[in-house]
């Protein structure tokens, strides 16, 4: 069986959605992970999009979080005020996916600038809803390609706080980080490798990180994607728009 880095990331994330109910989701790999979870471990997962679509049932692969296919056939469409106030801040979101340009060992995320804020080397999109998502969702999942550029010891800008000292937010903060090398969870607020993907090594993990990554004492190998998982996933993105 062969699979790509994107495929194992999506499969590993999807499995972690077992038992969850309401998922705040972005477009791309997170959306694929949720759709896969609906077909495998969690058929009753409800997808909520930042755009206001609730319980969407798209008839095609959405190309943006505001794709009209997320509206037609949804359970509800809500204003952004209601979405952020009543769903997110009101504590109704069990899991939210965030992307990251940079992430640190506490799970804090930068999506704002590379280099100083005032005169950035690269101007990234900024927060969008990420800052409030990071502080209010019960759990945060991150899917991010791991490299010394993304796994950094110090963020250029904290867009979305993780398990920072003194955190008082109601949301539980980062719960799971999935990369092409493995799955991380947080132990006393520290990102900790709990599962290594087949073929990946601890040396690769370390080389792709800007700090000495903690490793769980009961580290396991990620069970390889099953044929059924891969078939479901590939059917979701037949043109490999996001799977690459």
């Amino acid at each position, binding site marked *: 069986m062969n699979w790509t880095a994107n495929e194992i990331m999506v499969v590993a994330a999807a499995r972690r959605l077992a038992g969850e*109910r*309401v998922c705040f989701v972005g477009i791309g790999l997170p959306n694929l992970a949720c759709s896969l979870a609906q077909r495998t471990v969690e058929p*009753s997962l*409800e997808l909520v999009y930042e755009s206001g*679509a*609730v*319980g969407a*049932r*798209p*008839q*095609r692969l959405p190309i943006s979080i505001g*794709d*009209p*296919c997320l*509206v*037609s*056939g*949804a*359970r*509800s*469409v809500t204003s952004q005020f*209601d979405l952020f*106030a*009543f769903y997110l*801040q*009101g*504590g*109704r979101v069990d899991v939210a996916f965030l992307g990251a340009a940079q992430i640190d060992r506490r799970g804090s995320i930068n999506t704002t600038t590379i280099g100083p804020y005032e005169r950035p080397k690269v101007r990234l999109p900024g927060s969008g809803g990420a800052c409030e998502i990071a502080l*209010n969702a019960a759990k945060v999942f991150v899917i991010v390609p791991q490299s010394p550029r993304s796994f950094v010891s110090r963020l250029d800008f904290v867009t979305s706080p993780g398990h920072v000292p003194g955190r008082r937010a*109601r949301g539980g903060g980062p719960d799971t980080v999935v990369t092409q090398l493995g799955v991380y969870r947080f132990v006393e607020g520290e990102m900790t490798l709990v599962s290594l993907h087949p073929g990946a090594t601890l040396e690769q993990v370390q080389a792709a990180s800007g700090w000495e990554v903690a490793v769980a004492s009961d580290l396991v190998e990620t069970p390889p994607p099953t044929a059924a998982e891969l078939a479901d996933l590939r059917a979701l993105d037949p043109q490999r728009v996001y799977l690459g």
Partner: protein
Amino acid sequence: MSKVTTMSEAIGRLVADGASVAIEGFTHLICHAAGHEIIRQGRRDLTLCRLTPDIVADQMVAAGTVSRLVFSWLGNPGVGSLHAIRRRIEQADPAPLEIEEYSHFGMVGRYTAGAAGLPFFPLRSYEHSDLPRANPRIVPLPSPYGDDSVYAVPPLNPDVAIVHVQRASAEGDAQAWGLLGCQKEAAFAARRVIVVCEEVVPESVIRADPNRTLIPNMIVDAVVQAPGGCHPSFVQGYYDRDNPFYLDWDGISRDPAALEAWLQEWVYGLADHAEYRARLGAERWAALAPGEAWAPPVNYGSYR
């Protein structure tokens, strides 16, 4: 997963003695059927949260189920007073009634803060009124941006919200039209939600017009079908307000014995709201039926 159940089961399971219960609906969608079932089950010490305690509140207070009101306007709308409630407030007859009083926007703000997980809601009201003196939970709040100030009200998170709507799916996605009051805010603020509807419809009906969904199933604990359940209040497009009942209530409510007799006949003496509906009779329902006025079609588009 279907959440459809009976009113009796929903109230029995979700409304406990001592609970705070929001029954909202601003003149429209006031769920009398739920109030009657609460009376029938003999609940005690409830805190009733409602902008406008009206006939159903007078009945619940008279029946001894409610010991505390959180409200902003108290009366029989278009008619006058609620005499059972007035007796308790003015003369502690037969017992005192605790009240916690706001203005309408204060109550709406309280539900909004409760729904949004905020520790307060700011509004431009109350300055120079006696309300903050009567209710010390209404407090001034200076703006963090300098020379301006507002008042704050605290969040309201009822144990249960009971929301009547025109139609809902078995899973609990609820759609309403006409006056929406603060049904949405109350539902999101509550720990448990009972949706009562005129009609249970297939999920496909809900999904064909998602902008009409007021309350999503993810926050709903029970769905009860109770056609006519707002009588003598009204449901837009389904039945009109039964105004003679509002006028009659004035006399009934003035006389404790008449009120008790009414409760015996129309609540304790009936098994459920279906019996109430039948007892009102086809003629009375026919008189309340509105003509037709259909909304023009809108196309959501099919995107495949």
